[in-house]
């Protein structure tokens, strides 16, 4: 450890000349980001995009090493970090609402959210509920009325497994509208949002629940229409046309946030440095461009604020999951 610290210090002293930022005292020697899934998914994207932007901005001086550690919906990576990489100062791990959902439902056997340090968020992807462009349904209430009248007549497709975040979003909306037995809502799990949207276009299902980023391309081309965005208020720019669920009288909010956690044994110095680096990244114009291009909405939480946010959302998901009988 001492040797490590000395080395870090020397490295920082040498490199500090070029990087005279406020956090020059800690510079990760070999920055590493674990994406707890195979290449190509959201976590992989978070790691690679953040790594690339951090380097472009000069916040890290080496290329971020992205390690794909797939398995157990993130559980393998979580266990690995807790058990084997607990002291690493160079490591951050991509996380999202899906991580919180699984932690809340106890799907990472033996692990809880307080075994790691939550670093910061880099944005959020608000949930949308959409139907095909030629559908008769034009509003969320109309869709929910139909589900209320005959739950078997509406199939809702989403990219996550049953009990996953895409499923929970539609249940949050249904329960906010007063549908009592939300278990009756017919949800069809597909392998990712893209496949789910494709099946909506193919006419196999009647509605789609997912993230804005998954729906964006198809909204632009006029193939699907978004009947509700699960955001507190209307979004900016090109998304301003989407009605919120709230303005239709359904008090439902569902955001798929993206962010990072770090090993629980990370030194305070390193943790603070990572928090401020991600904070600086978040504030940069480069990152705003990335967010705009991917339909990500602002969610600016770092350090303790982020830690509190995650623990609140874990508690909220636990409540819903208990209500629908996924956990006892």
């Amino acid at each position, binding site marked *: 450890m001492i040797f490590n610290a000395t080395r870090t210090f020397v490295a920082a002293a040498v490199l500090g000349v070029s990087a005279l930022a406020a956090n020059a005292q800690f510079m990760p020697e070999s920055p590493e980001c674990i994406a707890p899934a195979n290449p190509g998914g959201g976590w992989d994207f978070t790691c690679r995009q953040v790594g690339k932007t951090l380097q472009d901005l000069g916040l890290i001086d080496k290329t971020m090493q992205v390690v*794909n550690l797939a398995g157990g919906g993130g559980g*393998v990576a979580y266990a690995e970090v807790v058990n084997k990489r607990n002291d690493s100062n160079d490591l951050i791990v991509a996380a999202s609402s899906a991580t919180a959902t699984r932690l809340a439902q106890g799907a990472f056997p033996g692990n809880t959210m307080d075994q790691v340090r939550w670093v910061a968020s880099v944005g959020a992807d608000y949930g949308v509920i959409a139907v095909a462009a030629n559908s008769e349904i034009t509003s969320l209430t109309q869709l929910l009325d139909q589900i209320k009248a005959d739950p*078997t007549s509406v199939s809702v497709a989403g990219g996550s497994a049953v009990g996953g975040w895409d499923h929970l979003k539609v249940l949050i909306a249904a329960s906010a509208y007063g549908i009592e037995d939300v278990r009756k809502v017919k949800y*069809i799990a597909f*392998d990712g949002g893209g496949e789910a949207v494709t099946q909506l276009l193919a006419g*196999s299902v009647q509605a789609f629940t997912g993230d804005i980023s998954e729906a964006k*391309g198809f909204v632009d081309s006029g193939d699907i229409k978004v009947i509700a965005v699960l955001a507190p208020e209307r979004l900016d720019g090109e998304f301003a046309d989407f009605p919120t669920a709230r303005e239709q009288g359904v008090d439902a909010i569902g955001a798929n946030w993206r962010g990072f956690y770090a090993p629980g044994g990370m030194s305070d110095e390193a943790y603070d440095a990572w928090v401020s680096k991600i904070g600086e990244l978040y504030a940069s114009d480069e990152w705003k461009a990335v967010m705009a291009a991917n339909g990500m909405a602002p969610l600016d939480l770092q350090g303790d604020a982020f830690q509190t946010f995650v623990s609140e959302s874990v508690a909220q998901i636990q409540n819903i999951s208990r209500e629908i009988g996924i956990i006892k």
Partner: protein
Amino acid sequence: METLASLGDGFAIALTWQNLGLALLGCFLGTIMGALPGLGPSNGVAILIPLAFTLGLGATPSLILLTSVYYGAMYGGRISSILLNIPGDEPAMMTCLDGYPMARKGLAGEALSLSGIASFVGAFFATWGLILLAPQLVKIALLFGPAEYFALFALAFMTLGGVSSTNQAKSAFAAALGLGLATIGVDTQTGVPRFTFGEVHLYDGLDFLVAIVGLFALSEVFIFLETRHGGAEADGKKMEIGRLYPPMSMVKQCTPTMLRTSVLGFLAGVLPGAGASLGSFISYSMEKRLVDKEGTFGKGDPRGVAAPEAGNNAAAGGALVPMLALGVPGSGTTAVLLAVLLALNITPGPLLFTQNPDVVWGLIAALFIANFMLLAMNIPMVGIFTRVLMIPSRVLMPIVAMVSFVGIYGISGSSFDLLVMIGFGVMGWLLRKFDVPLVPIILGTLLGNSMENNLRRAITIDNGNWLTLFDSPLALTLWAIAIIGFILPLVVGRKVKASMHEKRDQPGSTAD
């Protein structure tokens, strides 16, 4: 005409020294990665993403580099299939069936160069298909709902009998075993873990790559260990290489096969739920049904090498259609490419062709360039590849074992996967003893999940009504083909069976 003009613009973008250099680098690295067991196209592409970012490449050059790796790996996968009977990646599995017997007959050089040509033909037509038909093809993908996908997978399994030349019951058993293994992991339709025994590594199910490397590569090593101790000679070093170029008559004989399977493979690639493995598999089994009159498939028939290679390379091109036009990846590799596009701030989807024409056409031109480069590179390199056969087994087998372990650990970084791989190795060794073909096991694990999920999706959507599976003309057509493919050989197959009976003592290719 407008298309050709756009393609011309694409070539103008792609034909710079930098881009040509990147394509060459990508083709070379891709071929090697494809040939190494364990490293497939998706890992190959993923490994090179940091390189593209570090070099600070723009969107088009990055895509040129990465798609060259993709095409290169699809070419390279066949090399170890033919020479060692170890598939370099999933789609190359079918090439083992006839490629390895050809190599054992002393036709390794012919098999390699013929498969190179077949790969070229498949990829070439697929790229044209991508140019001319991409917008229309998207509509085909939209015809496939869960019920149709299920029928498609059922079709694949019903023609399974065509794959192995030995006992049909054994291949049925192997397929059932594969389907059983596919049920391991969290069931997405209910969220309940199955057969995971609380082990978090099993939640996502078994990794096909681990299964393939274990079943094929490690079991080969075990067999070698056993025969060395028994004093039997290792047959590796006595192999002849044969000519480096296939005779014209062989190419001619295979041309109709290549053309047919290019079309089939391309269509399989276009369907987001199917992909290259299904493409090469259906290509092989359909072609066997169609032209294998003498029962030579599985015993080193050149057409059995040309069919899956043209099929899987055409599927690789086809898989780009839904990725570019819908933003839906048709395979693991296109999922990675999709992520790269997103990271470069390009949103694939219905509007990509109009919003970023330079990227699309530059990419398509790069595919052509990469394809010609690969052909030009692969044919002369056949001579080098075949040297592998000159390496004595006692040197080669430890290398195979090492590459397997390093490859799998390098990708997943998990020692649990290594244990699973050893488990599969032992299983493969045992099954080879019993003459059970290994390919259906992999097909079962590979396709089992999608097959089950689509069945359950279809049934849930129609509220438990099983008749939904036969509800559309497309589904009915697929079922009809499946049933014909299943029953026809039972009726006509007697003659074939008789001729096979004489050669009973010769074990089938997959089983040795």
